[in-house]
């Protein structure tokens, strides 16, 4: 060994060095560590939303593994004789009985079940919030389009994993969910009946589906999720994290704290926080009390049959859809099922997945973006995002229309009608309002830069005029406000070139140019550095005048700082 190189080292240090040396000779560790161990990550709370998703998933894996030791994926009928008295002597599937067993007879079993289920809900919630952060800050832009696609795939897989897990206990609620899934499958034109017979090995419910779903739930989907999360993180690492604009932050640097020690402690610590909070919630708040639902029987149902929250938008869509069914040559096309349950989610997820490419096409922006947009600075995108969010929320609310009806003493029918109307009008209203708000904020930013901050001090000029004393915004603030750039929309292509030859792809380029102009149309002009310099000099004059008349700005330091320039 090479311990002789460092003579006075203690045993711990010697051991550590020996280990490092051993690994370095076999793995070339130093080359890897040199560039990565102090890798810089920018610090912002919104960058941790994705971490919540990651950690929830790890918690789901850990607790799920424990559950597999006791859960029996079988619908073989048995008579329950466990310790939960209100169900004793009732025929039920082994799947349901084993879930009761986990809940009532295995110490810590209920806790693990509840952590597992809460963590699954948090997983999807955190993915959604994380994606909204990425969307509204434009973090999906070049070069991160692939990571956006991976993220969308993860969201879809998370929904799938969640729904499969929801269906496994074979309680009344989960069985009703499967019944609906089978009904949707059956409504698919041409192949519907076959799909059901293949999936369920015959008619619904059969005996095959729960064991099959189990394999999908514990092996296939989590395997895919794990692989995609790995790819997602590798790309984040390799492409380096985006950062918000600010003093000292540019598109060509990344400013923040090093992985070792700060992020090892902060991100590592956050895993424990997430796990801890999930465990505490599971100690205190019931989730999915399957013992109250009873075993699944296809002819029983409960009021308020609901899916978990992330399927709520589909439930809402199904509830909202008018009863449209076509008969074409005697064959039924069940729009009332196909549109809300298959076409709509298909469209939504395709649109989400393609969004980065659509926006890049419209704006013609081919540049790399590592500085995030402030949502107001991308007014059209932000408005589109809120538009989509509104659409989703209306569907989601209608998914709980029965609970809302009883809680607020409203009529289900009126709620459904109101939501049908809102679904069509709400998003447009949201678009217009959001865009106006963004433009207002842009205008305010411009005013702040050019006219400074209002101090609330009134000054009477020698002419008798009253003016309010303004201070220039701080350098840090100015750096953030100046982050916006004017972008010129794509020009309309000429119909013919100089030789009178028709421009190739004219129609396509015209559409694109029109869209591009619509995209940027209302943006408030950004402040140029020259404008800023002129404005600041003006503000300084005003301040000097104010000072000479005995009115002081808020912070003497600031004027001191300014006077040095």
């Amino acid at each position, binding site marked *: 060994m090479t311990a002789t190189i460092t003579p006075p080292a203690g045993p711990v240090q010697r051991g550590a060095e020996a280990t490092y040396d051993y690994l370095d000779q076999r793995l070339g560790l130093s080359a890897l560590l040199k560039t990565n161990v102090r890798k810089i990550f920018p610090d*912002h*709370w919104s*960058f941790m939303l994705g971490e919540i998703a990651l950690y929830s998933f790890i918690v789901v894996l850990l607790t799920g593994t424990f559950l597999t030791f006791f859960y029996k994926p079988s619908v073989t009928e048995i008579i329950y004789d466990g310790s939960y008295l209100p169900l004793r002597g009732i025929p039920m599937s082994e799947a349901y009985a084993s879930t009761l067993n986990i809940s009532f007879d295995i110490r810590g079993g*209920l806790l693990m079940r509840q952590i597992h289920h809460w963590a699954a809900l948090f997983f999807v919630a955190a993915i959604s919030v994380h994606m909204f952060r990425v969307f509204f800050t434009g973090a999906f832009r070049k070069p991160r389009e692939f990571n956006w696609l991976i993220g969308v795939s993860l969201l879809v897989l998370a929904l799938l994993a969640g729904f499969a897990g929801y269906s496994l206990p074979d309680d009344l609620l989960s069985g009703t969910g499967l019944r609906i899934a089978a009904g949707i499958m059956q409504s698919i034109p041409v192949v519907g009946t076959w799909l059901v017979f293949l999936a369920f090995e015959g008619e619904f419910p059969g005996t095959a589906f729960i064991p099959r779903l189990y394999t999908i739930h514990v092996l296939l989907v989590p395997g895919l999720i794990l692989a995609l999360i790995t790819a997602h993180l590798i790309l984040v690492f390799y492409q380096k994290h985006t950062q918000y604009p600010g003093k000292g932050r540019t598109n060509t640097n990344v400013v923040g704290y090093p992985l070792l020690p700060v992020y090892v402690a902060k991100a590592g610590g956050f895993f424990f926080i997430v796990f801890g909070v999930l465990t505490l919630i599971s100690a205190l708040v019931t989730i999915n009390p399957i013992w109250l639902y009873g075993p699944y029987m296809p002819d029983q149902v409960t009021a308020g049959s*609901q899916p978990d929250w992330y399927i709520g938008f589909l439930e809402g869509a199904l509830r909202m859809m008018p009863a449209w069914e076509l008969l074409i040559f005697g064959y039924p096309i069940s729009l009332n099922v196909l549109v809300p349950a298959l076409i709509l989610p298909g469209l939504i997820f395709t649109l989400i997945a393609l969004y980065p490419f659509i926006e890049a096409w419209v704006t013609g922006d081919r540049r790399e973006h590592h500085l995030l947009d402030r949502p107001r600075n991308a007014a059209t995108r932000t408005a589109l995002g809120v538009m989509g969010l509104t659409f989703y929320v209306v569907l989601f609310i209608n998914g709980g229309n029965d609970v809302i009806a009883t809680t607020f003493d409203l009529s289900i029918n009126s709620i459904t009608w109101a939501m049908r109307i809102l679904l069509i009008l709400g998003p447009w209203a949201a678009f217009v309002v959001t865009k106006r708000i963004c433009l207002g904020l842009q205008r305010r930013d411009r005013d702040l830069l050019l006219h400074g901050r209002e101090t609330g001090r009134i000054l009477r000029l020698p002419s008798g005029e009253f003016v309010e004393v303004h201070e220039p915004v701080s350098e840090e603030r100015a750096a953030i406000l100046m982050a916006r750039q004017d972008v010129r929309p794509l020009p309309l292509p000429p119909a013919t070139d100089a030789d009178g030859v028709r421009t190739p792809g004219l129609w396509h380029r015209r559409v694109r140019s029109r869209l591009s102009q619509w995209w940027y149309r209302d943006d408030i002009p950004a402040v140029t550095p020259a404008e800023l310099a002129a404005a600041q000099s003006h503000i300084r004059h005003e301040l000097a005048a104010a000072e000479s008349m005995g009115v002081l700005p808020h912070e003497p330091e600031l004027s001191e700082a300014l006077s040095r320039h």
Partner: protein
Amino acid sequence: MTGRTLRRQPWAAPALLLLTLIGVGALVAAIDAGTQPATASGAPSQTQVAKGSALFAEGCASCHGPAGEGTTDGPSLIGVGAASVDFQVTTGRMPLAAPNVQAMRKPPSYDREETLALAAYVAALGPGPAIPSGSVVDEWRDASVAKGGELFRVNCAQCHNFAGRGGALSDGRYAPSLMSSTPLEIYEAMLTGPQSMPVFADTSLPPESKAEIIAYIENLKQEPNPGGLDLGRFGPVTEGLFLWTAGMGALVAAAIWIGARVR
């Protein structure tokens, strides 16, 4: 429940968008308080009928007609039986406070003696289900809770929800929560089918099955929540609300703490 005062108007529906976000607490606490009338029965005496007749003329006849034959404002009471009157009056649903989609549970307007007199009078109008005797109602104490659960899930849960917390019906009607209903009231409701509820006659749902159902509901009332707070036993909707408020709130707060600058 705060929403009780809201009007059932179509225009009120959009407001729920906001209310949903605000009203998490209301969901959890959505159980009506009610008084527990003592069970009593016995053969109606002539004086009882006479007293009931007087009370009826004073408090009921305006809607149900002077002889209980019904008007445009209220259905005929001939043949509804004493059980129906007892249920409607002890739960305060009758007399109606104001015309509404559905009569709501409220403190009763008549005491036990007056209620029985009214019941005796209406029973005398035409044959109908009698108030079940105390001993019949009390059979639930020895009945099978598990069997009751099965019957409950097939006959009751579709409207009253898996935990008897109630649920929505069409056009603003609702199946009420059963958590403050007494065994006698539940029995009478099954027997008479008040308002939207269908009748579960003793012939198709025998008294021992009714006892089992009551046993299950009584068990639900005092059933512990091994997992912690029950969030109102409404199923995934309140779980989702908890997740998006307290749950994500806590984790986002933690993230903000981690990202906040230290002084």
